[in-house]
């Protein structure tokens, strides 16, 4: 029915995540790779016959991890976006498998912020918005701690004002 010249598209959400998310993601990758490398090297110290192969595997892990830790966070920073309007929450993630989620304010059940130890170091927080559908939760990672807390408050207030119709 709609065969106009400019077909409608879903525009990307307005906001990027906080820039500090880049070092946060980077540290996550570095720590994961480092743990893996240590787990490989430690037995290598005690088991001489397997030392060569274990150390080689550890080196491979490091060689793969370094470019990933440099590039992936930059990439993720580009593809993670979010937006909160008066009536809905909208997020987008991914490139190869892009996923856009929209949750209407009136259906929001809980709003939580979560801060892991690493997130705390960078002053970041994750915002988790749930609806009555277990498949409908919306999460925004890598927000500035203050912004996330303020958003959580705002959302809680708005959802209190809007007549609830959760399910």
């Amino acid at each position, binding site marked *: *029915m*709609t065969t106009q010249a*400019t*077909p*409608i*598209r*879903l*525009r990307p*959400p307005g906001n990027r995540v906080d820039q500090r998310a880049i070092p946060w993601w980077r540290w996550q990758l570095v720590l994961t790779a480092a743990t893996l490398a240590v787990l490989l090297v430690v037995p290598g110290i005690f088991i001489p016959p397997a030392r060569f192969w274990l150390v080689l595997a550890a080196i491979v892990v490091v060689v793969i991890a370094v470019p990933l830790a440099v590039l992936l966070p930059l990439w993720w920073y580009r593809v993670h976006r979010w*937006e909160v*309007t008066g*009536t*809905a929450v*909208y997020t987008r993630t991914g*490139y*190869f*498998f*892009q*996923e*856009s*989620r*929209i*949750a*209407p304010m009136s*259906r929001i059940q809980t709003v939580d912020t979560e801060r892991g130890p690493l997130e705390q170091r960078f002053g970041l927080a994750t915002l988790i918005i749930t*609806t*009555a*559908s*277990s*498949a*409908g939760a*919306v999460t925004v990672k890598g927000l500035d701690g203050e912004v996330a807390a303020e958003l959580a408050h705002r959302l809680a207030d708005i959802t209190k004002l809007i007549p609830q119709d*959760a*399910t």
Partner: protein
Amino acid sequence: MTAVLTRTSDQWRRLDWRTIAITTATLVGFTGVSGFSLASVVSWIFGWSLASVLAWLVPGVVLIVAAGFVGDWLRWTRTRYRLSADRLEMHTGVFVRKQRSLPRDRIRSVDISAGIMLRLCGMAKVEIGTGEHVDKDKTSLELDAVSRAEADRLRRELLGQGPAGESDDQVLAELDRRWVWYAPLSVEAFVLGSGAFGGLLSVAELFGFEADVLTWTYNFLDSMPLAVAILIVVVVGGVVGAVGALLLFVTTWWDYRLDRESAGTLRVRRGLMTTHSVSLTEERLRGVQVVETLGHRLLGAAKVDAVATGLAEEEHGEESDHKTLLPNAPAELAHQVAASVVNAATSPTDPSILCGHVTAARNRRLTWATMIALVPATVLAVLGLLLTDVLLHIAWSWALVALGIGLPAAVDAYRNLGHAISGRYLVSRHGGLWRKTVALQRDGVIGWTISQSVFQRRKGLVTLTATTSAGRKRYSVYDVEEHKGLAFADTCVPGLIAQFLDPQPPS
């Protein structure tokens, strides 16, 4: 009338005392039969006289029966329940006392079931729940067992109906005996077929015949040409499975009837030996789903499931039947029942209203089918060239079979894609082996997920998923043209997605 009701229903009540008698009788029967067969096997193996073995066993049996009787008597004396104006309370537990209490306005389901013994005594088991399956211990309570009349009283009172007769009930569907013939095409047929063979073997083993049966079967099949032998196995398995599926259908769906009761509750009644009555309040209903397996689709049959909040979705067996509103029946009737369940004048699941998808969606499916056929074939062929010719033959025969099945299946899957808006309902259809047409209340949509892979983006397709609190929690429209899918989402739930569209559609 109401005053009398409130006064009488305020008292604490006990379960029916005959529960103890039934438990004891069942235990006597069970231990008697199993004890006697154990005794005969033991006496046969060790060559002792049956009487002396029984002399040892009988005291044990008596002890078990006595323990069962005392246990159930204790449970009976310590279980009480009360239906007050705003709560249903139950106290139970022999050693650990448990006190449960459900607010009456939260109660959404009252399911009644009765096994053969309970039925003979005019009694039934009642399970009362709030319709949430989060924590079964907290959200439901079971009365095992009360008299049939008491079960009915509870059901009517809890689901907000007066104690009136059934005259105002509206029958939506009743069992037609001819539906039985759809049963052998169900998945159960295959499972039962192989299960029955296994069962036969284990019975044979019990009597020490297993080796004989196997040798006999093997010799018999070995004397035939290979093709005939395979055919015999398939036919025997199929027949056994079909008979099993027929029996299962008859025991499950005998006396099936779907009603809409005065207070807007849907009620399914069914069962030959064990009877079930499942009630579903309309406020829990978010839509219906029509399911057709490939076999049933070819025969023009379909079944109808409820899409409701708080129904057990993952559980199997008896539980999974809880959401079935109509067993496999002629498709036309299924769509009609779907329409009357959701109170719609025209059937929302009717295939003729569905809007098909663009050919790009078909090409995606054809690509998948080709990949599944050719990727393993190529790997096998390369290995075959390097190692042995056998792999080459496997490679080309795999490619032929996989393409022969895969390409038609891909086209079929594409043809089954469809979506529509029918009144208050969003309709989506997909699937080949299991074709599902879901009609979901547009009010019940509590969010959208729009996913797009790189391949979909190149072809301008998206998969649009509506999230909801009912049923499987997410229902998708697969591979729909991007602008069409977005416009569809906008029409389904006005004023939600429009603000994120570019350019904004005229509202």
